[in-house]
């Protein structure tokens, strides 16, 4: 039995009399420790899919099973790294992570243990030095690092990343992708990442889930990325498997499922 099972999910948004079918019959099995990317054109419902797994959006039909148990409300075992980091601006970097750690481990860890765990997670993303800064005082990339630290600090069974690097410039994005790869290698988390960046998907993922265009989006293809880890950005540029995987995703997105409206 798979770790996370997405079982024939349908999602229809009702707005008065009008209804929009966003996802149709989406099924996916994810193993423990796997890094799965979901890619598709904008509006294909990939963020909706992530929100359903997170429990933030209710399902119209079907089920999400984590370790065989159905989940339909949000919880810290499915931590989310939000696209726009969603740090609370009135709290310092430390307090933002502390809010999560104190809530999740409040009864189980002592105050000193919790402090160590907060600092450990901040150090993991190299943000220990900025623990007393407020989100407004650090750069976009740093904010997203803290967002990742907050997600990791909940010790989630699955870390859900909603276009985590979408709002960052290319260089910062590359840094953070490397960080994520290192963290994934060290901790072996199960991660699901929403992205619209083909290179990012191929570089980071074990599998790439390609969504067709909405409405009624479904999973078009699933591509296994058989690249050895650890992966090095520079070595991959000329790697045949990498190039083939990249080509497969690009062909899916721009030949077979071209997004007409996105002119």
């Amino acid at each position, binding site marked *: 039995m798979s770790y996370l099972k997405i079982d024939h999910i349908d999602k229809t948004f009702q707005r008065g009399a009008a209804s929009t079918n966003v996802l149709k019959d989406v099924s996916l099995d994810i193993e423990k420790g796997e890094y799965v990317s979901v890619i598709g054109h904008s509006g294909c419902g990939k963020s909706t899919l992530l929100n359903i797994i*997170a429990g933030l959006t209710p399902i119209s039909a079907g089920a999400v099973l984590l370790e065989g148990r159905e989940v339909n409300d949000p919880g810290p075992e499915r931590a989310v790294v939000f696209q726009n980091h969603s740090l609370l601006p009135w709290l310092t970097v430390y307090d933002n992570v502390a809010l999560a750690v104190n809530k999740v481990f409040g009864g189980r860890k002592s105050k000193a243990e919790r402090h160590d765990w907060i600092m450990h997670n901040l150090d993991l993303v190299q943000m220990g030095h900025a623990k007393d800064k407020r989100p407004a005082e650090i750069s976009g990339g740093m904010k997203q690092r803290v967002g990742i630290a907050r997600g990791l600090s909940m010790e989630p069974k699955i870390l859900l990343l909603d276009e985590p690097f979408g709002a960052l410039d290319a260089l910062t994005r590359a840094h953070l992708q490397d960080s994520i790869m290192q963290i994934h290698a060290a901790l072996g988390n199960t991660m699901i990442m929403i992205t619209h960046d083909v290179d990012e998907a191929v570089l980071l993922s074990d599998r790439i889930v390609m969504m067709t265009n909405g409405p009624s989006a479904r999973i078009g293809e699933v591509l296994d990325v058989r690249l050895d880890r650890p992966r090095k950005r520079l070595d991959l540029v000329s790697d045949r498997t990498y190039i083939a995987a990249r080509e497969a995703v690009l062909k899916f997105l721009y030949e077979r499922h071209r997004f007409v409206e996105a002119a």
Partner: protein
Amino acid sequence: MGRAVLKEVPAGAKVVALPGGNPGVVSLPAAASKPLSARLAPWLTSLLVNIVPPMITVALILLFWQLAAHGPQSSLPTPTKIWAEAKDLITEPFFWNGSQDIGLGWRILVSLQRVAIGFSLAAIVGVLLGALVGQSVWAMRGLDPVFQVLRTVPPLAWLPLSLAAFRDSQPSAIFVIFITAIWPVIINTAVGIRNIPQDYRNVAQVLRLNQIEFFFKIMVPSAAPYIFTGLRIGVGLSWLAIVAAEMLTGGVGIGFFIWDAWNSSRLSDIIVALVYIGVVGFVLDRLVALIGTIVTRGTLTN
């Protein structure tokens, strides 16, 4: 200004280090220390720029007033006459010559005490009701029309009713303050809570914060700028209402002092009292604004 410090972060982070060793992290400019005189100079300049123009305005108003009210048939006293008649009230706010002959400072304090009680109650109840209305669609549908009607009732219109209910002037005056100050607090809090970004709500949901944690950790800090706007309007209205209420209820406050002075035709005293009221109202407004700036530090910028 400060100098930017380029700081190297040690590469050996506990478990994972970024590939390529040590990314340079540029810290924000540190506040550099300068000699005291150099730091005071701009401060003094800004003080002069802010103080001198209003001083000139006040001097011109006094001069004009002196000229206009000068003459035997003038019904209002001139500034020099006020100074001559009410010098003790101006120079000694805190004298005490028996229960009804006391300095204006004491009277202001009594009025401020009433405002403090009424306004604090209004702030607490207002934030709670505002949170309810902001958070629940049904509470908004049910309560908002009632609030919108009640908030237009002038403060003093409540006074006879509250006198009938409490049968005492002190709680009645406090009630009038409460009912005057609460509406802007409720309405602004509700708007602030309706404007909490969905992202913060998602964070709270993922963390499974309960209602009380959500209220204190997300709702209040996030809506704080709106809440303080409401509090600032509320404290201004309270101060407007207390003077009028005290005129009718009697007792010690500054409002009753004006009424008493009018009955004894001490126009100079009334004018001094007006200046006191204006200055205290201004200070109250700035005080709430200052607390707001400190409390909401960092909330607006993201």
